[in-house]
């Protein structure tokens, strides 16, 4: 970790958020929980899981930890923060899909996000398989490199996008990216999409379908039939990931209680809950998904529905959701974390804090802040440690 990186890490800790790319370094204690989650990754456990913790107690940290570990294990991962005010609404699977594409990461790619690394890797696999001259997934996907049709992928849009991407033309790739990042924007631009991704590329492949068939079949529409193509696209990403020698596709949802607080239409909230159940059912998406919530999430959902007068809802569905609860950090674990923070702070600002702050002083500070009975005790302890170190260095400057 160089000073610039360390400063970025300290800045994240200063405002109480887990430092991107270095979460594992600051993961202390919770060995049993970490082992359980690691085992899920190693065994490619399918399905979804609610990750429960109070605010400030490590939900986002845990999601980022999982992301880093999953990438190390060879998964492709997307971390999505729900935000009903910014087109990341959980009742809209097309918006969720767009956010997933935007947050997509592949292993060993320096944290670069988005569709490009993944599709570039897929195209590399396709190209490298051409020389093998034998049947394979890529041969089937491209219909022996003719790209005229495919029944390997479920979502026709993914096939069209990948086919266009494989031309290597930057302008075309930009269009594919823009479309997948915001599919709802292009819902009314289907003729443009047809021309740009199919019509003008006839020198690269020959799609036998007529233009009207694309429109009639809703190929450019991610909202039709209860977002069927959005769900299909998720399954295709998972399938492509596995065929490209990744272990699969994992989706992490942060700020999931946005569903309760910021989706203000009860119909939309019900749709969001249904999507949650679909993820848990494992039929519409067969990869792994994790949802960060507070411990009372299920109760909050049920209360919300009751307050809106929905008495005949199957409330048992909430109770059946698999959960995983994080235990609070102990004082000893916070102490361990404090030492790590002190070390990084020293790297960040080029000083030796352990020469100024005695270990006993650090322990006393941790003990004091950790003794305060608040939900976000962990966050406040971290912030207080950084604050104290900041004061020390500024006093000696």
């Amino acid at each position, binding site marked *: 970790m160089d000073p*610039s990186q360390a400063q970025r890490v300290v800045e994240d800790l200063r405002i109480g*958020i887990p*430092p991107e790319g270095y979460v594992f370094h600051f993961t202390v204690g919770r060995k049993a929980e970490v082992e359980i989650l690691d085992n899920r990754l190693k065994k490619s456990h399918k399905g979804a899981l609610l990750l429960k913790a109070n605010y400030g107690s490590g939900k986002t940290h845990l999601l980022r930890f999982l992301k880093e570990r999953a990438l190390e294990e060879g998964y492709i991962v997307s971390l999505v*923060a729900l935000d009903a005010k*910014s087109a990341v609404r959980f009742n809209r699977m097309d918006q969720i899909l767009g956010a997933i594409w935007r947050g997509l990461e592949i292993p060993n790619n320096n944290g670069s996000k988005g569709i490009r690394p993944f599709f570039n890797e897929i195209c590399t696999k396709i190209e490298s398989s051409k020389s093998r001259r034998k049947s394979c997934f890529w041969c089937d996907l491209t219909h022996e490199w003719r790209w005229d049709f495919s029944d390997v992928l479920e979502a026709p849009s993914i096939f069209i996008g990948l086919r266009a991407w494989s031309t290597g033309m930057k302008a075309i790739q930009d269009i594919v990216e823009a479309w997948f990042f915001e599919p709802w*924007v292009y819902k009314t631009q289907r003729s443009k999409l047809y021309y740009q991704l199919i019509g003008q590329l006839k020198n690269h492949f020959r799609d036998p379908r007529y233009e009207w068939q694309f429109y009639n079949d809703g190929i450019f529409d991610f909202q039709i039939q209860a977002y069927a193509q959005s769900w299909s696209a998720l399954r295709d990403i998972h399938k492509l990931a596995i065929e490209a020698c990744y272990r699969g596709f994992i989706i992490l949802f942060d700020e999931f209680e946005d569903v309760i607080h910021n989706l203000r239409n009860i119909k939309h909230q019900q749709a969001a809950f249904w999507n949650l159940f679909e993820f848990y059912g494992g039929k519409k998406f067969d990869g792994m998904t994790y949802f960060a919530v507070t411990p009372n999430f299920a109760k909050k959902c049920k209360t919300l529905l009751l307050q809106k007068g929905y008495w005949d809802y199957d409330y048992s569905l909430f109770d059946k959701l698999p959960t995983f609860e994080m235990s609070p950090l102990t004082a000893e674990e916070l102490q361990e974390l404090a030492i790590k923070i002190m070390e990084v702070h020293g790297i960040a600002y080029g000083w030796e804090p352990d020469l100024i702050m005695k270990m006993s002083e650090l322990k006393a500070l941790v003990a004091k802040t950790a003794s305060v009975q608040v939900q*976000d005790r962990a*966050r406040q302890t971290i912030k207080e440690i950084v604050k104290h170190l*900041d*004061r020390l260095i500024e006093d000696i400057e």
Partner: protein
Amino acid sequence: MEQRLALSVIESLRKGIPPQRGTDLYSVGYEKLIEGIKRHHLKGVEDRGIIRFVSGSWGAGKTHFFRLLRDITFAERCLVSNVELSVNEAPLNKFERVFYGIIRNVMTPSVYQEDNSTESAPFGRVVRESLIYLGTQNSLAGGELNHESYSRAVQRLMADQGIDIDFKKMIQRYWETYLPEAAEAAIQDQVRAEILQWFSGEGAIGAYRRRFGVNKTINKDNAKLMLQSLAGFVRLSGFRGLVILFDEAEQSYSTMRKSALKDAQNNLLSLINNIEAIPGLFLIYATTPEFYTNPKYGIVIYGALAGRIGKPEERSPRALNTIWNLDALETSIDEYGTAAKKIRAVYLKAYPEDADKIPDDNEVEKFVNDLFDEHPSLSAVRFWRVLVTVLVAHFDDRLEGEVRSTKELYDDVMDKLREAD
């Protein structure tokens, strides 16, 4: 130019308000904070996103501080956008309007140096300077804009994957208006205005699709992503970063409906959570202490937000603090004296021909002490504000040959300040 600036400063101080420019000429007490901001934040600003909060009661100097900050950030080759988070201009619960406000108020160092605060299209200036930088091999001194430089700039713009495609398209079309064969000036001005309207959220998407080939307008769905694109564009264009000074001037949060307040707080939380992903962005949010502590509309009602921001501390603000509490900034009588001498120096620059009529430094120091004794320590009006206003009035009296006691001056100015408030 120096006299002009000095006159402008004195005129503002005469009214008891901070001048648009030249706040550094008479500031005191901010030295450590400013130096720390330079060292810890502006140095390396291009590598990370930063957010800080300013807390200050009415008259604590938030506006003064923001203008000081603006000056130093321009000196560090950053863009600055000063956005008032008011109901009318840019309410925080509607982030797209905040983005529009950022675009409307963004300024480059060169525009600031030209003293062109009335630039009608400040973002247009950013785009033009970007073209010069990217097209003429990084020479900000400028050069001939031709097809070669245009193509070079477009190539570099399109290669940046962190900028939204429609954002890039509009920038490219704006650049086209500077090509030698472009249409006559009036038409090009119109095209530029239309493009800038897109960035400001005006106009219908249909027209933009037909004329410029974009597929969306900047709206609530994508405003946060567009902010990311804006920051990326700024860095690409050779500036070190984009500093956004949010001023909650009207305490707009206290008049919001409950749902709007929640949206505003959620938007702020989203900014905090995502700032790390926007290198080159430095957000500074100034508000009053009630924002942090009010049980009805303060952030204390939203645990996730309060947990990240915290509360103002009763200690002198330092750069690394999350909240810079200007109310805790203690100014000594000696510092007030130093400020007074600085104001005297500015006054002499403003009215050099009357130098012999103005009190010398020793007299000024005595005057400050007398004034300090006159002002109640618990007064609602800050002594700083009293000082600058009374001092200028004192110098004006001397200039005009009038003699008033310190008490008379004090009473007169206090009456005026109370009326102004």
